[in-house]
C-alpha cells in the first residue's frame, strides 16, 4: 500500500454497508475491573469499576472525568500492552487475555498512543528523523506507505524539522511529531491521553484539527481522554463520563452535553469556565 486509506468522514465509515456491528468493533471492553495499590498506604482501590464500552470503526469516543476518575487506567487497558484486572478486552475482535505474548506484540501497532507530555514521549538523544527510522526498522512493511517528508507534511511541519532534536521543538511541534509517529503505523485505534492539556490554546486548536484530519484520512478510531468537556465535544461523537472509576453516563456526545442525566455530569458542566462568554455569544 502506498497511500493512506481515504475514506471520507468517519460517520460514513461507521455506516459502511456490509459491516455488521459485531465483527466491526475496534475495541470492546466488557465489565472491566482494575485495582491498584495506593503508593503510601498500600491499600487497594478500584481504579476502574465494572466498565463496559465499545468503539466502532472510525468512531471517536471521549472519556471525561476529573483526576483519579480512572480514565487513564481505562485508556491504558486499550493499548494491548497487557490485559489488566478482570473482564473482557477485545481489540479488533481478539480477546487480549487469550493471546500469547507474540500475538499480543503483533497486535500492538494497531493501537498508537499520544500522551499529554510530548517531550516525555520522545527520546532526547534522537533527531526526529532517526526516531522515525527506528520505528520503520521495527515495522518495515507497515510503515513503507509514506516517506519522512510526506509524513511531517501531514502534521504541518516543515521538512527541516526532521533534523531537529526534541529540545529544539516547541510543545506544539513535539506533539505533532508524536502524532506523525502514531500515523506512520496506520493504526486502527488512536488513544490520546490529554494530548492538548499542556499546550497554549491556539496550539491546542491546531493539534485538535490535526487529530480530526488524521482520523478522517486514515479511518482510525479514537479513544480521547480529557478533563476538558469543550475539547471532547469538539472532537468526539460519543462520550463516557467517569467518576471514581465508574461510568456514570455514556452516549452520543451531543445528547450527553445538551441533556445530561447524571448529577455528576451536570456538576462538571456547571463548573466549566466561560459561562459568561457563552451566555452572550
Amino acid at each position, binding site marked *: 500500500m502506498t497511500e493512506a486509506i481515504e475514506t471520507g468522514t468517519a*460517520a460514513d465509515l461507521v455506516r459502511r454497508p456490509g459491516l455488521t456491528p459485531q465483527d466491526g468493533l475496534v475495541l470492546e471492553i466488557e465489565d472491566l475491573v482494575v485495582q491498584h495499590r495506593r503508593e503510601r498506604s498500600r491499600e487497594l482501590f478500584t481504579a476502574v469499576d465494572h466498565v463496559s464500552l465499545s468503539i466502532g470503526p472510525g468512531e471517536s469516543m471521549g472519556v471525561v472525568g*476529573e*483526576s483519579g476518575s480512572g480514565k487513564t487506567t481505562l485508556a491504558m487497558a486499550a493499548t494491548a500492552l497487557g490485559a489488566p484486572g478482570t473482564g473482557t478486552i477485545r481489540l479488533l475482535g481478539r480477546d487480549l487475555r487469550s493471546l500469547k505474548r507474540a500475538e499480543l506484540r503483533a497486535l500492538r501497532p494497531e493501537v498508537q498512543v499520544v500522551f499529554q507530555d510530548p517531550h516525555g514521549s520522545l527520546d532526547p538523544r534522537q533527531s526526529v528523523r532517526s526516531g522515525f527510522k527506528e520505528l520503520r526498522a521495527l515495522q518495515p512493511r507497515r510503515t513503507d506507505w509514506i516517506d519522512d517528508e510526506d509524513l511531517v507534511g501531514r502534521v504541518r511541519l516543515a521538512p527541516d524539522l526532521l533534523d531537529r532534536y526534541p529540545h529544539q521543538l516547541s*510543545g506544539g511541534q513535539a506533539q505533532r511529531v508524536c502524532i506523525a509517529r502514531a500515523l506512520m503505523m496506520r493504526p486502527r485505534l488512536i488513544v490520546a491521553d490529554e494530548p492538548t492539556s499542556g499546550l*497554549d*490554546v*491556539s496550539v*491546542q*486548536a491546531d493539534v*485538535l484539527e490535526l487529530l*480530526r484530519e488524521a482520523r478522517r484520512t486514515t479511518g482510525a478510531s479514537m479513544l480521547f481522554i480529557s*478533563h*476538558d*468537556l*469543550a*475539547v471532547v*465535544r*469538539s472532537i468526539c*461523537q460519543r462520550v463516557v463520563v467517569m467518576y471514581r472509576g465508574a461510568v456514570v453516563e455514556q452516549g452520543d456526545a*451531543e445528547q450527553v452535553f*445538551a*441533556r445530561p442525566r447524571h448529577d455528576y455530569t451536570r*456538576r*462538571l458542566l*456547571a*463548573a*466549566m*469556565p*466561560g*459561562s*459568561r*462568554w*457563552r*451566555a*452572550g455569544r
Partner: protein
Amino acid sequence: MARGEALLELRSLTITASVADRQLLLLRDVELEVRAGEVVGVVGESGSGKTTLARSVVGLLERNVQVATGRIELVGEVLVGPGTDLTHTARGRSVGMVFQDASRSLNPLMRVRRHLSEVLERHVDGIGRDEVRARSTEVLRRMRIDDPDRVLDSYPHQLSGGLRQRVAIALAVVTNPALVIADECTTALDVTTQAEVVALFRELVDELHIGLLFVTHDLMLASDLCDRIAVMSQGEVVEVGPTDQVLRHPTVDYTRRLLAAVPHWTEGASATHA
C-alpha cells in the same frame, strides 16, 4: 481600603533580562492598574510575560532581571523605579501571593497551624498567641473550610489538592493585604475544584475589597471572574478593558485569535460535527 481606589499601578514598565551578552525584553511599556474591590485578569499564552509581570510586583524575579524604564507603585508608594533591583519585599503585609502549585509553596514538614502562625508573627507586630489562634481559625472559615481545627492540625500531604490551595490562599490573605496576586493558581486543579476556588476569590474581593491580579492562560476562566482583562502577548499588554468589552468587541487581532481558538460550545442546543 475604599472601593475603587488605585492599589497597584504599573507605569510604562519595561523589564529586561541579561542573558550572556544580550538584553532580552521581558516586558515592554506595560500600563496597568488594579483598584480596590476589583479583579484584573492578566491573560496570555506561554512566554507572553504574564508571570514576569506578576512577579515584578512581589520582587520575585531572578538576579539578571532589571527594570529598564517605568515604575511600580503600591498604595501610592513607589516600589520600583529605574535602577532598583526588583528584590524589594512588598510581600506579606501589602501583597499576598498564590502560586500554581500549592504543595510547593507549603513546607511539607510543617502543619498548617504553624504556616499561619509564622506569617502572622512575621507581619503583625506584637501579635499574641490567642490572636494568632483566633485569626488562623477565622481565615480558614473564610475559605469555606468547615472543620478548621482538623485542617490546622494537618500536614500539607494529608490534604486534598483543593484544600491545599485554599490553605495557600489563606496564607496570602491572613495578614489583610491590600492586593493579592494569583499566578495560574487553579491550573493544577480539577474543574469542579477550580470553580469553587474562583467563587471563593470573588467573595473575598467583594467582602474585603482587596484588589486581585489574576494571572491565567485561560481566557474563559478569566472571563468568569474578572472585572477587567489585560491581554498580553510577547511582553506587551496588547489590549485592556472591561471583561465584556474585551470578549464581545476585541480591538486587536491577537485577542480575536485567542477567542477563535476556544473550542465552540453551544449551551444545550446541538453543535455540528466536523
